[in-house]
């Protein structure tokens, strides 16, 4: 199924770094996300948009996985040629990942 069924996601941006926070809709699915939603899978899924490293932070107290994506392609809100210069739509693109 799509990650969208299980989780919601928020994108943030700071320069050419994008943050993607993923929260299970049901706290009971947190461990499933920890097992399946690795930094490598996220990077592969967003390869068209993220050129650099993806770092995953586990936040069990908040029931959240927080991904920090470096070198967002076309980098940075100010001089990007992308339509979505902030990369705000990356959150929904991540939710199209199959889990």
């Amino acid at each position, binding site marked *: 199924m799509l990650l969208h069924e299980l989780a*919601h996601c928020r994108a943030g941006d700071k320069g050419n770094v994008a943050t993607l926070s993923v929260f299970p809709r049901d706290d009971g699915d947190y461990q499933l996300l920890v097992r399946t939603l690795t930094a490598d899978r996220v990077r592969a899924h967003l390869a068209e948009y993220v050129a650099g490293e993806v770092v995953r932070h586990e936040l069990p*107290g908040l029931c959240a996985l927080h991904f920090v994506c470096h070198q967002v392609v076309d980098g940075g809100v100010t*001089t990007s040629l992308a339509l979505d210069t902030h990369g705000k739509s990356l959150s929904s693109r991540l939710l199209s990942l199959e889990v």
Partner: protein
Amino acid sequence: MSTTRIGSGAGFSGDRIEPAEDLLRRGDLADIVLECLGERTVALAQQRRLSDPSLGYERRLPARFARLLPPALANGVRIVTNMGAANPLAAGQVTRDLLDAQGLGGRVAVVTGDDVLADLDLDAPAWETGKPLREHGEIVSANAYLGADALLPALSADVVITGRVADPSLFVAPLAGRLGWDVDDLPRIAAGTVVGHLLECAGQLTGGYFADPGFQDVPDLHALGFPFADVEPDGTALLGKLPGTGGLLSRATVREQLLYEITDPAAYLTPDVTLDVRGVSVTETGAGTVRVAGARGTPRPGSLKVSVGYRAGSKVEAEISYAGPNAARRAALAAEVVTTRLAGVPLRAEVLGGETDCRLRVAAISHDQDVLERVGDEVESLYTNGPAGGGGVRVHVNEVIGIVSALIPRDAVRPAVTFLEAPDAAA
């Protein structure tokens, strides 16, 4: 000290005005913060100031304040805002004039010192690129992110106007003032920074940027209410929004905003504290309120971040649509025609949309006016020279201010406060 209530009245320059008006009229607030200054906004404002020294503050300030000053002054709510942008003193004078024209009295304080263009070492490297700052292009602005300490001497005013200040610090300062916090009290400054971080984007905490029909439904999104926090002396916060407003305040919306733009959950750097959000608890208490506690902090960084704006040329964006059977292939052919004819021009050409409703988008940044015009012209000429059925050409050209970051030692930045008194108070 008892609990104090602080509201969020704007999360960006273009934000709605009526939610702030509503909070001022019936929110029983002590303070309201209007955060209106994006990374690039200050550089664009600096451009306006260069063309007219009386400008350079947030251009929506007069419209916003015309509606917000009367209820704020009537109900004794202090306003803190970064709408001073590149010219806080001019913003202060405009605010003074607005107050006087309506006979509202009141005291205006202006915080300056964030503009460090004259002191910045332009041979220092930019964070993002490692290249010396001056090699990015003509530098037009350099603004340090001031911290809460710069605002403390201004808190006796009814309206506090700043230029660049770290967004959470706009909240930390009034909280510290109301609750008697010392700026070195790490647990409390950390807690206040979390409150500021949660509130700084206004509607993004209360169901804005969240709705996903059928999965995350938000009631009355068209009438989104903005948030406030009841902050206790120990920094624990109870988040709420006004009854009768639309939106949603829940553990889900608060968790999303808590981590928003946090690049290191263990060490988020602000001018006031190094914030650790890993132990923060977010609990729905019933009745639509959410309790937040558990922030930790270590000492603040020794340097301040500086946002440096440079002229990056102009960006042209040109688009054309194709619809119906085989639209995707016609759009792709159109892209090929344009990129072939513009060979050698660095550009981005992409086909957006599905199989039967497509939009070709071509974008380029250049300092060369001829290049900008050619890109627009090539897309427009697809009307009669490109694939079948192209329509809806739009071409936009906008100047681009690039932003890179640098660090500056704290002691090189000298914040100051100027008070603008009401005429009768000064007499």
